[in-house]
């Protein structure tokens, strides 16, 4: 079964957007680095520009994601990703009403109108077919080979051990200075993420049921 990962860019005081849904401050890290990270979708030339550690993080993330589940406001903010999510995975939008003009022919953005649980189920099905789809397309010269390499089962298995991901950063364009730790023991499998601390910290938490 697929895992459901909540992904967010958040300030130290817990904000993910300003009162008018603006995300400039918390998304700035996607576009303020020296390393270009192209997205896998052949339909767009959208690129991230991030720091070297963030580039590693984003490449891993894009290789790991099988489908996207978003709310209607995110869909609106993103202008429907032009009909193709740049991660080259199906996107499922939870909404009460399918927006006018959608779904579009040839688009991989779909709409789920019967609630959040249905949306999770639908996007999990979409996720599985996407994984099969990528396996099929591995021989397709139009799909960059590096994508297949990024699905290395050992690497993704390690990453899938973490379920919840939250990028936590201080409020405005903070230029971080990573320093060696004081030697205290780190959480085993998250140590690489912690050592990445720069402008943005990638924190991954596994959600545990309350005892």
């Amino acid at each position, binding site marked *: 079964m697929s895992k459901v990962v909540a992904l967010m860019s958040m300030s*130290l005081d*817990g904000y993910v957007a300003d009162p008018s849904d603006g995300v400039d401050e918390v998304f700035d890290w996607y576009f303020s680095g020296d390393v270009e990270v192209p997205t896998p979708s052949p339909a767009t030339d959208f690129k991230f520009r991030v720091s070297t550690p963030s580039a590693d993080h984003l490449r891993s993330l894009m290789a790991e994601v099988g489908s996207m589940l978003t709310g209607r406001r995110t869909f609106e903010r993103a202008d429907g990703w032009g009909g193709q999510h740049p991660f080259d995975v199906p996107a499922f939008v939870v909404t009460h009403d399918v927006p006018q003009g959608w779904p579009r022919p040839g688009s991989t953005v779909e709409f789920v109108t019967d609630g959040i649980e249905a949306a999770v189920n639908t996007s999990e099905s979409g996720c599985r077919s996407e994984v099969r789809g990528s396996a099929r397309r591995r021989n397709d010269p139009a799909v960059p080979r590096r994508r297949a390499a990024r699905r290395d089962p050992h690497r993704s298995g390690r990453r899938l051990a973490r379920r919840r991901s*939250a990028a936590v950063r201080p409020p405005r364009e903070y230029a971080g*200075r990573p320093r060696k730790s*004081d030697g*205290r023991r780190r*959480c085993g499998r*998250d140590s690489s993420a912690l050592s990445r*601390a720069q402008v943005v910290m990638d924190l991954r938490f596994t959600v545990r049921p309350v005892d």
Partner: protein
Amino acid sequence: MRKLIATVFNYSLDGLLADEGTEFWKFCFDLPENNEPDEPTHLDFLRNAHAHLMGRTAYEGISGAMTTSTDHPFSPILNAARKVVFSRTLKTADWNNTTIAAGDTAEEIDKLRVGGDGYILVWGGVSLWRSLMRLDLIDELRVSLFPYVAGEGTRLFDGVPKSYRLDLVSSTASRNGILELQYRRHR
């Protein structure tokens, strides 16, 4: 000039400080490294502080705990150390080596931080931290971020300046996932 370091503990992922009696509070103190904080580098960090600053509420809580739970690793350090309680209502402070700062906050801080290097720890509570952030007198924040979404508690960053920019200095996780975050005020 001495640096002012705010030590913020029991901080949740949703930006709340643990209030006594909540599930989050219980979670915090059920973690052994938080209940019995005996990390030598951290004890040295406390021991080497020039002074320990507290608001009145924090002073009452911490002084009570440190003078009764004398086996707590912080107890011998804090009982001996120089403490300053910021209060305009408190008349006497019985805890050993404690003085009361009742004047203008910025002036009181200046009296403490000039004339030497090193650092001064600010233990809170939230009112004192927020006042010092508004006066832009905090040089460093040490935040203990717990792997927990509390949903209830006290918001730390209420009534503080907008766009309060920080530099991340270091981050270390304990064995149960408490993330020790060190931020420096960007100046």
